[in-house]
């Protein structure tokens, strides 16, 4: 593996949502978009807060950060646009985040026991240990929950 390839593999985007800081592998991140209008309409999909229009595409916005940590979406100013896997297909999706994020390079370490499956590892940055999230796994896990409890509530 070349130095450039290794750096790509070990690159992470560090983000904040509410009071939580976390990391995503840079390879899944397309861009950090500026404040955009969140469009909403009735639907029953858990976690989907609405859609944004970015670069000619209508992208779903996930309210994916666990509830106790997140702030109000309208107060979160940026949208992280990342590639999410849906089976064999993948699509760009957005999650609201605070601030502009940072790019960092580091070695991912195995997550401590007991963390949810969507935490694929931890990253030690400046004395802080950040969870590295698998966005697709987080969405799949949280989306699966409410289906077991009868009809889903309509979101707007």
């Amino acid at each position, binding site marked *: 593996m070349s130095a450039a390839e290794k750096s790509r593999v070990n690159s992470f985007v560090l983000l904040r949502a509410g009071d939580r800081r976390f990391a995503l592998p840079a390879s899944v991140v397309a861009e950090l978009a*500026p404040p*955009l*209008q969140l*469009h909403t*309409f*009735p*639907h*029953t*999909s*858990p976690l*989907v807060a609405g*859609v944004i*229009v*970015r*670069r*000619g595409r*209508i*992208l*779903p916005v*996930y309210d994916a950060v666990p509830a106790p940590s997140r702030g109000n979406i309208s107060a979160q100013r940026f949208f992280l646009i990342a590639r*999410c896997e*849906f089976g064999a*297909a993948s*699509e760009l*999706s957005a999650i609201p985040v605070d601030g502009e994020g940072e790019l960092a390079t580091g070695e991912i370490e195995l997550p401590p026991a007991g963390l949810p499956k969507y935490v694929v590892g931890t990253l030690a940055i400046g004395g802080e240990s950040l969870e590295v999230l698998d966005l697709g796994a987080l*969405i799949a896990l949280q*989306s699966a929950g409410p289906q077991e409890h009868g009809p*889903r*509530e*309509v979101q*707007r």
Partner: protein
Amino acid sequence: MKFAVQDAAKLRRGSRPESVILFSVAHQMFAIAADSVQEIRSADSVSGAAHEIDRPEMSKVRHTIERNHRTYYVVNAGAHFGLPTTRPTLVLILRQLRAAVLVDRIERMTEISAVHPLSRAFTGQERRWYRGLAYLDDRVIPVVQPSGFLTADEFRRLDGAAKAAASQREMEGAVQA
């Protein structure tokens, strides 16, 4: 605004325009293909000819109306989409389905340049409700799927209830005579 203008231009590119009717329910705007609507009437004008239908588990349909010797099931769009209760004023009578839809108001008729498929992120009933999304005047508007208002199974159950209600009315008429 620069982003919106650029986005609108990109979303328009390479697509064929389609005439739609924009309607609203509980302050939420929707679009429906104009050619899927046969007639728009005020709710008051059809209420005299409406019959009640009793399907407690399907609260979105409370009435039937007769048009051109066909029975149409009247779907309350607010109840269908799970929106707050409103007082609908108009009925959209659909063209190729035995369904009519109660809505609050018609905004206007316009053309949309494209219907964008729903993202795979949407996994709920909206996959049946909508054909996709339209981007119009810096707004994203769901384009409804006319056949999504009532499923084949719902039609079957309503047909049973309507038949029972008609028999009941005939019996009551015979008793009064």
